[in-house]
């Protein structure tokens, strides 16, 4: 990562977890970015995962491709790789929150996620999200909506400095 990025915290799961949550995020950066690589226990090619900021789910628009087509909806839910995808393969994702510490503005959220599956179905997801609150973001939670994130799923939270 560029020198303007500083690692705030990181984790690689040693056991399954329904959700992971970064708390007490310092308000000293300009933006934050959460990157990671995940897989869940849902017995499907993909699971569904929800992002909550300060305990509130984001709203937004989602564009996703399945390998056979493209769809668009207003459900800002991520599609992590599930247990029926090719074994030992994980997705990758980026969640970018500019001006996360603002106390005067709502926060836009940009998410991209690419699943991994050696088959005809694999998901690529783009979400334009919104956290409709003037409260600085101090907690970020990712929840598997059907199963649990499996061991070796990783999450890295970076703060992006202004210079």
């Amino acid at each position: 990562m560029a020198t303007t990025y500083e690692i705030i915290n990181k984790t690689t799961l040693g056991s399954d977890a329904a959700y992971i949550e970064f708390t007490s995020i310092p308000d000293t950066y300009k933006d934050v970015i959460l990157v990671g690589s995940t897989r869940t226990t849902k017995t499907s090619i993909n699971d569904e995962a929800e992002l909550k900021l300060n305990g509130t789910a984001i709203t937004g628009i989602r564009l996703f491709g399945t390998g056979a087509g493209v769809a668009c909806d207003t459900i800002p839910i991520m599609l992590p790789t599930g247990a029926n995808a090719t074994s030992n393969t994980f997705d990758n994702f980026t969640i970018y929150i500019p001006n996360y510490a603002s106390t005067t503005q709502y926060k836009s959220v940009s998410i991209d996620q690419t699943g991994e599956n050696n088959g005809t179905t694999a998901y690529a997801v783009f979400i334009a999200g919104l956290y409709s609150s003037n409260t600085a973001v101090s907690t970020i939670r990712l929840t598997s909506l059907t199963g649990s994130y499996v061991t070796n799923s990783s999450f890295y939270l970076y703060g992006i400095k202004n210079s």
Partner: protein
Amino acid sequence: MSKPTKLIINCETKEQIEVELTDEEVAQLEADRAKAEADKAAAEAEAAAKAEAKAELLARLGITEEEAKLLLA
């Protein structure tokens, strides 16, 4: 049966704590899951309705989807 667990990562203290969800948290998780399922079902129903309306329109116009794309290109 054991409850699901959560991993809390405190960015101030650097502590990482894995704990079982409380009963309230399990209930909230299940509510979140139910809402996601309902939203998904609604989106799928809307998409199906649009596909049906599109098919009816194409039939009324007497053209195929490929011919419609050609017209709109």
